[in-house]
């Protein structure tokens, strides 16, 4: 697997995400395009007004999976640099929960990579969202990550 470039960023944070700073971070004079995905807290879920959200993660594994996504981006797409930052803890309506910024010499790679990154993050990174409503809280519906069905065991030498 290709090593992530030194200036890629993969972070879990508990403070507000500075979108502008991350876009500036991935910017370099050899590039021409940055595509950014900014996911933020909606004011409703399934037509029920949301008060706020709480995100938790299996932090060490989540960071490992985020780095893995970064490595996949460099393998699959002609990009220069990527930043993937997810916020944890309590988030208010309108606050950014995830920011992905991808720079590339050409726009097609930046679009494809950014979309691959958020799609893959939502399927594979162990982060969970609890939604708080007037009358209670529920864990959001999510996606079951694809796991190996069986272990391929190497037969021991006899």
């Amino acid at each position, binding site marked *: 697997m290709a090593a992530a470039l030194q200036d890629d960023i993969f972070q879990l944070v508990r403070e507000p995400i500075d979108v502008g700073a991350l876009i500036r971070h991935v910017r370099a004079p050899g590039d021409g395009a940055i595509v950014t995905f900014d996911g933020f807290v909606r004011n409703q879920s399934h037509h029920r007004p949301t008060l706020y959200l709480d995100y938790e993660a299996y932090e060490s594994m989540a960071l490992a999976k985020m780095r893995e996504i970064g490595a996949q981006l460099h393998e699959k797409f002609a990009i220069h640099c990527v930043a993937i930052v997810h916020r944890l803890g309590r988030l208010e309506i309108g606050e950014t929960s995830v920011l992905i910024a991808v720079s590339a010499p050409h726009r097609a790679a930046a679009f494809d990579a950014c979309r691959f990154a958020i799609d893959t993050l939502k399927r594979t990174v162990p982060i969970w969202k609890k939604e708080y409503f007037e009358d209670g809280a529920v*864990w959001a519906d999510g996606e079951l990550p694809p796991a190996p*069905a069986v272990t391929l065991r190497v037969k021991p030498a006899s």
Partner: protein
Amino acid sequence: MAPVSQTVRVKVLFFGRLKDVLGHSEEFLDLADASTIEELFALYAARIPELAKYRSSVVASRNEEFASWDTPLRSGDEVAFLPPVSGG
């Protein structure tokens, strides 16, 4: 000589709704050597029957990699039971 029956110590983590059902998020557990992740989950389901109904909507990881349910565990392994993820 036949091998002596041994136990292995693993760290077990629960997240999201599983953590709510268990009432705690991590503990260390001693298991018979070569127990699988499936057997580990069954131990918890025996203790807390409500857990059983989550079995089909949970994936497991071993040492931060998604793992199949028939994975045998070794001493020092960290196993996590992960409900459907909802980051993003």
